[in-house]
């Protein structure tokens, strides 16, 4: 296979005008795990109230980039991030910015469902309670019920809100995690392979849910499934070996990729 010349790569990295206003903008982001250069000079705009999917072969740095957006990488001592990432034009690596509030504004759903080993209610209520979002018990109840409803889980669990969240099925647990994430009213939701542990039916449910949530949130999803990316996202970014190879509207990426590597990847020729 032929590698694009640095010139072309430079061009590919230039973000083309996004469909809507950019919610998150990354410029020349580099990430190092100790000596390892995991993410190289990534620049991308993530549009507001749309779903952006990150695709690329395993180990190419999708999760790493995703975790830069809510500064989850801060918890890894050896991890070092350079470059700028802004949300609504504000630098999130600004030392005056409170990282805890940032994470409230940028919610995250992980690859493996990870509900707290507490009741379903407590799982959802934890975030709002932490941030003092509810003044009364009824208000908190309302937030919990609304979040569960928006995660289309409420009908299934309404009679057992006090039972343990870990007692749910995998798909239900993942929807509970989504409910937990949206309960704190984030602006951006990051999802790292949210369906990788789920069967097709649960996956379909989550995808439906993502489509619904799009109208209110800015969503970034990492996925290994081309079909999923094509189904749920409006924009797609392709990563390879730590670099962002190509970014554009999902339709364009899947029908008319500019880069040979993108084409090879989406047609299944490598990866």
């Amino acid at each position, binding site marked *: 296979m032929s590698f694009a010349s640095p010139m072309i790569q430079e061009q590919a990295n230039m973000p083309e005008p996004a469909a809507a206003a950019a919610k998150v903008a990354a410029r020349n982001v580099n990430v190092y795990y100790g000596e390892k250069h995991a993410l190289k000079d990534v620049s991308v705009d993530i549009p507001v109230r749309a779903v952006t999917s990150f695709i690329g072969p395993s180990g190419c740095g999708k999760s790493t980039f995703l975790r830069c957006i809510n500064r*989850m990488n801060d918890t890894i001592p050896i991890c070092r991030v350079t470059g700028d990432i802004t949300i609504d034009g504000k630098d999130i690596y600004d030392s005056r910015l409170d990282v*805890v509030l940032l*994470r*409230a504004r940028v919610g995250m759903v992980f690859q493996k469902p990870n509900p*707290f*080993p507490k009741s379903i209610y407590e799982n959802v209520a934890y975030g709002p309670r932490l941030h003092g979002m509810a003044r009364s018990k009824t208000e908190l109840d309302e937030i919990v019920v609304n979040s569960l409803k928006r995660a289309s889980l409420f009908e299934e669990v309404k009679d057992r809100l006090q039972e343990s969240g*870990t007692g749910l099925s995998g798909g239900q647990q993942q929807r509970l995690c989504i409910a937990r994430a949206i309960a704190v009213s984030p602006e951006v939701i990051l999802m790292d392979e949210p369906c990788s542990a789920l069967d097709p039916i649960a996956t379909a449910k989550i995808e439906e849910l993502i489509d619904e949530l799009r109208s209110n949130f800015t969503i970034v999803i990492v996925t290994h499934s081309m079909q999923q990316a094509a189904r749920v996202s409006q924009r797609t970014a392709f990563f390879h070996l730590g670099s962002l190879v190509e970014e554009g509207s999902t339709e364009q990426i899947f029908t008319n990729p500019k880069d040979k590597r993108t084409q090879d990847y989406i047609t299944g020729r490598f990866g």
Partner: protein
Amino acid sequence: MTDTSMTPPAPGIRTFDYGSDEAQARVKRRYQTEARFKLYGLLAVLFAGAFVFILLADIVRKGMPAFFEHRVVLTLDLDASLIDPTGRREIDALRNGDYNKIVMDAWRANFPEVTQRAERRRLEALVSSGAADDLRAAVIRDPALIGQKIRFPILLSDDADLHFKGLSSRISSAPGTGALDVKINGREVELSGSGQPFAAILADVKAGLMQDAERIGAELARLPASQQGGNNAALDARRIELAQRVAELRRRAGDVGSAETIDFSSMPSRIVRAEGASIRLQEIGASSAKGFLLVAPQREISRIDSWTVATFATPESNRKASDADIAWLETLNGRGAIEKAFSTRFFTSGDSREPELAGIRGALIGSALTLLVTLMVCLPLGVGAAVYLEEFAPKNRFTDILEVNINNLAAVPSIVFGLLGLAMFLNFFGLPRSAPLVGGLVLALLVLPTIIIASRAALKAVPPSIKEAALGVGASHQQAIFHHVLPLAMPGIMTGTIIGMAHALGETAPLLMIGMVAFIVDIPQAITDPGTVLPVQIYLWSDLPEVAFQAKTAGAILVLLGFLFVMNGAAILLRRRFERRW
């Protein structure tokens, strides 16, 4: 990537026949090795199990007597003039009453024939010095008893207690043959009867003499041969003496029918019992015997038709309870006055020089106070240190060294901590000696590494996804840890703590260093009072010469084992109950 399973083997790829004899033999050998290994494992387990069982069985056998005590139930006359002369029922007056006299009067009344001073002392010594205290407590609890006659259990002394627990001498009893004429002159008794009623006893005595002769003969044979030119005077004298004794014993044993005088320092005692009387035989002939009246008969007797003779296998001088003691106790037992009861005293009283009064309350409270101090110091410190090291501390050389040192501390011999405690808490800070406070602090040093290590392991075992989930909804690092990680680690931390506490409960050596080994009667009321702990109490008792304390030692060990069992059980239960909830 290419599919090779169906195609014939390519050249260079070896085939292997797993059905060949050689392969079969290898499989068989593997099975044999596995079977042998399983057998070894099973044997090891059985072996260890048998050891534990023997150990436990032995301790239980030795310790059970400690949980029971023997008392004699007497009718006491609670004479108001002895207890409360003023009649005002004031607590001070009640406390000062002469309860000992009440008890002793009632006790002596059982054996009016005992008048001689030394004998009376012996009789009185069979009742515990604590009996009067029991009565005092009962009267203070219920002053309405004063002036009444009550049935009251009187605690027996340790020697008496041991007799009933079968630890004084082997006693065998046989019916006597034929009727006896009895002549009582003061305490001297003459027994005679037609048809040689004592022939069997006499034969038994002679058989005993023969055994003695053989035993001494064996001793004589073991004496080293005299050397030429050496100073053998002492040895020769001993040889001659032993030879003479053997000859004398042989002569007496062989002289069938001749009367024998019992030597109570080396020969079993024989007691004739009839009509409530006990007579110790001193001179035994075939048809008549002379004896001493240990216990007087219920009524005047001159002739007895049925009688028994009891043999106390251990010679009198080799045991604590004398013939008279045993005769008195057995007489009361025959009257149904002796009761065996569960000894609550063992759990409710402190240490004492009198074995029958000694209990483990002081040690238990001491242990509880000590462990309380340990827990109060250890748990917050240990968990705090663990949380800091595991979740907050930067990973650098300093924390690495810290970690290595903590792990090493867990392996430091406990006596070293005792020395440290002595130097630091007693000598430098001037804290009180023998106090549970200091003991607790020393033990805290001892178990701190255990708790830190266990807590860190428990914290590490909580999946990081839980922490990430909390961080993801906007919890701070600290909130994530205190709201989610720490609660989930708590069962593991508790397990580690309980095991650490069990370790501390059984620890003796460091406490010896800080003076918790003193004889302390009072039960500690505060952590600064002098006290001792259970294992040290066991150590103290095991050192005492009284036989009764040996049972107490084993009894206290049982209690300690019980506590350890419960604590470790709780730890296992916690682990089972809360294991992996995610």
